[in-house]
C-alpha cells in the first residue's frame, strides 16, 4: 500500500505516513463513496426484489431462506409472458437502431451545423424528454383511434400502419431518440478542430476525416445512447399498456405488471421476468464493450479549438423546415390531442364531435383539493434529486475513471442494466429494502427521503453513462499535469473537469430533473401518505373519469416545466457560445471546409 507513483505527488511534502494517508484515502475514499452510492441506491433495493426469483418467501412472515425455482418455472410455463419477453427484446433492438439514427441526425444538425432555430429545436428535444410517457401514449392512442379525426382524414392508413409492431417501434423511437441526441451531442461537443487539421494535413479528404476520425470518436456515445434506448424500451410501460396492447403485441413490462397486480401478488414471477430483462441489457453491454474495444477516446485537450460549424448553405431553410416538422410530429401530435381534450367539456375528452370549447377544466384545475401543492412538491423533488444526483454522478464517474477493477466493472454494468427494470419493480424493491428488519428501524420508509433516493436511483444510470462518456474525452495528461503542479482533487475538478464539461453538466441536470417531475410508478408506491406528487394527482383525476381536468393539469404543468427547460436550454446554448469566442478560430481556411458535410 505504498503511494501510487502515477498520482504524481510532489515529493518531500510531509512524512511517508501522511503521504500514504493523502494518496490512499484520496483514491480509495472516492472509490468507496462511489461503491456505497451505487450499492445503496440501486443494487441493494433491486436485489431485494430480484432475489425473490429464487427465494420467494424471503420477506414473508416468518421469513424463509428456502430456495425455490417456482417463479422461474411459472414464468417458463406462461406462454403469454414468454411471447411478451421475446417481443420486448426484438422491439428494443429495432427501436434502439432507429432511435440512434434519429438521435445522431438531430445531434449532428444541432451541434455541428449552422441550422437556424437551434434553441427552438433543442426546446422540442427537451419537451420530449420532460413530457410524461402517459401523456404521449394517450395522445397517440387517441390519434390512432379508428373513429377519430385522423381516420376520417386519412382513411385508416395511419391506423393500419401504426397499430402494428412496426408502428409501436416508430412511436417509441420518436419518444426516445432524445436520449441518443443528448449522448451524441455531448460527444460532438468535445470534437475539436485540431484532430481535423491533423488529418487534413496528413492528406485526408473530408470523407476520410469523417470515416476515420470523427465517426470513430462519436461511436462510443452513439452506442451508449442506443444502449439506453434499448434498456428504456424494455422498461417502458406507457406504450406497452396502450398502443402495444391495441396492436395485440404483448410486451414484457406488461406481463410483469400483470403478475404484480393479481392477488396474491406474484413477486417471484415478476422478479424472474425482470431478471430476464437485466440479463438482456447485460449481454448488450458486453457486446457494446467488445465492439468499442479498448481504444482511448480523449478528444478534449488544452488549446483544442472548437469545431467550426458546418455550413448548410442554401439548404439551411428546407433542412430547418424538415427538422421542425419532425419535432412537431414527435411532440406536437400526441401533446396536441391532450391539449384539445383539456378544452372539451365532455367527461370523456378526445375528439367528441360538435363539442364547444371551454375553459371550465382550467378553472377547476385551480380548485383541485388533492392536487394542491403537488406541482410545487414535484418541483422540489426534482431540484433536490437532480442536484444530489449530479453530485453522486460526479463522484461515481471520477472514481471509475481513476480506479478500474472487477468491482467497478460489475457495478458499472449493473447500473446500466438497471435501466431495463420497470419503475414498479424498483419501487417495490425500495419498499422491501427500507421496510426490512434492520432498515425499518431507520424509519425512512414513508418519508420524502426514500422517494428522493428512489428518484436519484432512477436517473443515476443515465447520468453516469453520459458523464462517464464525456469524462473519458478529457485526456489523462491534462489531469496528470495539474496533479504534477500540485493541484488537489477539488482543484482538478474546479479548473479542469467541471469547466470542460459545462454543457454536459447542465444537460444531465436537466435530464435528471425532467425524469422526476412526471414520474409515476415509483411515486405511486413510495410517496409519503398525504403528500401526493404531480403524476399521482393527475392520474387520480383520470381514474375518476375527469379527463378534461386531468388534461388541463397535464397541460399546465408541462407548460410550466417546459418553460423552465427552455430557460436552462438557453443557458446551455449561451455556455456553448461563450466557450467558442474564447478560442478564436485560426486564420487558416482549413476550418470551414475541414469537415464539410459532403
Amino acid at each position, binding site marked *: 500500500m505504498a503511494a501510487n507513483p502515477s498520482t504524481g505527488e510532489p515529493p518531500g511534502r510531509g512524512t511517508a505516513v501522511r503521504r500514504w*494517508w*493523502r494518496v490512499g*484515502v*484520496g483514491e*480509495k*475514499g472516492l472509490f468507496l*463513496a462511489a461503491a*456505497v*452510492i451505487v450499492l445503496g441506491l440501486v443494487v441493494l433495493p433491486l436485489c431485494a426484489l430480484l432475489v425473490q426469483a429464487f427465494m420467494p418467501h424471503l*420477506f*414473508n*412472515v416468518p421469513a424463509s431462506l428456502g430456495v425455490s425455482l417456482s417463479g422461474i418455472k411459472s414464468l417458463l410455463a406462461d406462454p*403469454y409472458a414468454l411471447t411478451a419477453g421475446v417481443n420486448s427484446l426484438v422491439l428494443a433492438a429495432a427501436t434502439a437502431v432507429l432511435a440512434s439514427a434519429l438521435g445522431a441526425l438531430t445531434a449532428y444538425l444541432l451541434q455541428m451545423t449552422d441550422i437556424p432555430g437551434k434553441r427552438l429545436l433543442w426546446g422540442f428535444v427537451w419537451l420530449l424528454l420532460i413530457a410524461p410517457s402517459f401523456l404521449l401514449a394517450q395522445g397517440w392512442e387517441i390519434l390512432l*383511434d379508428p*373513429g377519430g379525426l385522423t381516420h376520417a382524414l386519412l382513411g385508416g392508413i395511419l391506423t393500419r400502419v401504426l397499430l402494428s409492431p412496426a408502428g409501436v417501434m416508430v412511436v417509441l423511437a420518436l419518444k426516445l431518440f432524445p436520449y441518443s441526441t443528448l449522448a451524441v451531442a455531448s460527444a460532438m461537443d468535445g470534437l475539436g478542430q485540431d484532430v481535423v487539421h491533423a488529418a487534413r494535413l496528413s492528406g485526408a479528404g473530408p470523407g476520410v476525416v469523417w470515416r476515420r476520425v470523427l465517426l470513430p470518436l462519436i461511436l462510443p456515445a452513439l452506442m451508449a445512447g442506443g444502449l439506453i434506448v434499448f434498456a428504456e424500451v424494455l422498461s417502458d410501460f406507457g406504450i406497452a*399498456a*396502450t398502443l402495444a*396492447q*391495441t396492436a*395485440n403485441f404483448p410486451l414484457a413490462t406488461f406481463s410483469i*405488471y400483470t403478475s*404484480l397486480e*393479481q*392477488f*396474491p401478488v406474484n413477486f417471484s414471477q415478476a422478479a424472474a421476468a425482470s431478471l430476464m430483462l437485466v440479463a438482456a441489457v447485460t449481454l448488450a453491454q458486453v457486446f457494446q464493450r467488445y465492439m468499442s474495444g479498448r481504444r482511448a477516446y480523449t478528444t478534449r485537450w488544452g488549446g483544442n479549438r472548437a469545431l467550426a460549424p458546418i455550413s448548410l448553405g442554401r439548404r439551411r431553410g428546407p433542412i430547418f423546415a424538415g427538422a421542425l416538422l419532425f419535432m412537431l410530429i414527435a411532440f406536437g401530435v400526441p401533446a396536441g390531442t391532450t391539449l384539445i381534450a383539456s378544452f372539451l*367539456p*365532455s*367527461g*370523456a*375528452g*378526445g375528439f*367528441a*364531435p360538435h363539442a364547444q370549447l371551454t375553459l371550465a377544466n382550467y378553472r377547476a384545475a385551480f380548485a383541485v*383539493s*388533492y392536487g394542491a401543492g403537488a406541482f410545487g412538491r414535484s418541483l422540489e423533488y426534482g431540484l433536490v434529486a437532480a442536484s*444530489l444526483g449530479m*453530485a*453522486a454522478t460526479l463522484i461515481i464517474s471520477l472514481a471509475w475513471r481513476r480506479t478500474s477493477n472487477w468491482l467497478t466493472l460489475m457495478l458499472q454494468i449493473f447500473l446500466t442494466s438497471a435501466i431495463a427494470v420497470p419503475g*414498479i419493480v424498483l419501487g*417495490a424493491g425500495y419498499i422491501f429494502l427500507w*421496510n426490512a428488519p434492520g432498515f425499518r428501524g*431507520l*424509519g*425512512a420508509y414513508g*418519508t420524502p*427521503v426514500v422517494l428522493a*433516493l428512489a428518484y436519484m436511483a432512477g436517473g443515476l444510470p443515465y447520468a453516469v453513462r453520459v458523464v462517464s462518456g464525456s469524462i473519458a474525452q478529457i485526456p489523462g495528461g491534462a489531469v496528470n499535469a495539474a496533479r504534477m503542479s500540485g493541484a*488537489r482533487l477539488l482543484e482538478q475538478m474546479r479548473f479542469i473537469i467541471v469547466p470542460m464539461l459545462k454543457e454536459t453538466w447542465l444537460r444531465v441536470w436537466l435530464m435528471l430533473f425532467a425524469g422526476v417531475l412526471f414520474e409515476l*410508478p415509483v411515486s*405511486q*408506491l413510495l*410517496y409519503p*401518505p*398525504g403528500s*401526493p406528487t404531480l403524476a*399521482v394527482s393527475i*392520474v387520480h383525476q383520470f*381514474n*375518476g*373519469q375527469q379527463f378534461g381536468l386531468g388534461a388541463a393539469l397535464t397541460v399546465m404543468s408541462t407548460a410550466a416545466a417546459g418553460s423552465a427547460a427552455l430557460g436552462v436550454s438557453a443557458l446551455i446554448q449561451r455556455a456553448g457560445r461563450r466557450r467558442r469566442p474564447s478560442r478564436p478560430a485560426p486564420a487558416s481556411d482549413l476550418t470551414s471546409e475541414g469537415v464539410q458535410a459532403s
Partner: protein
Amino acid sequence: MRQPLIAAGALLTGIGFLVAGCGSAPSAASSSVHKPQVLIFYSAQGYDASEAAAFQKATGIKVELSDMSTGPLLAKVAAEQSNPKWDVIWFDGNGPMSSMAQAGQLLTGYSPANMSHYNALGKSLLPKNHAYFPTGVTAAGAIAYNTHLVSKSQAPKTWTDLLSPEFRGAVGMNNPAVSGPTFPLIAGIFQQFGVRGGEKFFTDLHNNGLKIYDTNGVTLQALLDGTIKAALFQDSAELNAKLAHDPVSVVYPPSGVTMLPSDIAINAKAPDMQAAKEFVNFVLGQQGQKTMQDIGAAGSDSLFQPVTNEVKPLVSRQGVKWNVVSPTWAGSHESAWVTWFEDNVVR
C-alpha cells in the same frame, strides 16, 4: 492537506445519501408512534381525498392519504406485508379483501356503531367476522351503447344480443390484465353461463370482432367517437358519461350484472387502531356517505348504489338484477381465467 478532506467529504456525501434518511427518520417515526391520532390511509377510490378531508375536519385526526390505482395499491400492501404501515385500506372488489382476511392481515370482530344503518344489501355483503365493510356497490359491467348510432329499438337487451351481425366489429370491452373491474365482470359471466358457456360467449364475441381497450376511459372514448357502437364496462363510468350529456344509454341485461362491492378494512396490526376504527365508523355514517357522493370532487365513483339507509343513490338502478360472485371461488380461478382470456380473446 485538503485532498484527504475532500476525499473524506466525498465518502461522507456517499454515506450521507443513505444516512440522510435516518436523520429525519426518528422524528417522522416518533411522530406517528407517540402522537396517536394520525391515520395512514391507502385507497384507490375517487372519493378518498374528500373523505379524508371531511374526517379530518370532523374529528381533528390527521389523515395521511396514499391514493393510487388498485394494482399498485395491492402491490404496495403485499410488499409491506412483513411490517404494514397502513391503518385503513379501501378499494373495489372483495376478492383481494377476502384473501387478505384469510391470511389474517385484517382486523376482525369490530362492529362500528354506524353499522346499524346498513340496508339489506349492506347486511348481505358484510362478512360474518367483520373483516371488511362494504361501503357501496357498482356493476362490474353493464352494456352501454351510443345513442347516435343505435336506435332504442335496435339496442341490445341481453348479453347474447351483442353477438348479432348488427354488432359485428362494433363491441368493445376492457382488458382484465389492466382494468380492475374487468375480471369480476368475466367471473360473473362465467358464473351465469357456466365456465364452458362463458368461454364460448367470449370466444363468440371475439369472432364477432370484439375490440379490447385498456381501461374504462379508453373504451368510453371509442364508444363516443363511434369506433364501436356498444361496450361492456363498469356501470358507474357509463352512468357518468350519461350524466355529462354524452350520447350514451345504459342497459342492464335481465339475467343480471355482477355486483362489484367497494370495501374498506382495518389492518390487524394498525399503527393507530383507534383512528382506524373511528374512520371506518365515520365512512358508514351520514356525513361519510354524503361525502362519497360529492361527484364534483370524486368523479364517476360517486355513482355507487348505497349500502346504507343514510343516502339516496345519485342515479337510479331500479329493477337491476344483481349477481353476487363468491370472492373465494373467483379468486381461486383468477390467474387461470385471465390467462385464458389473454390467450383466446385479447389476441
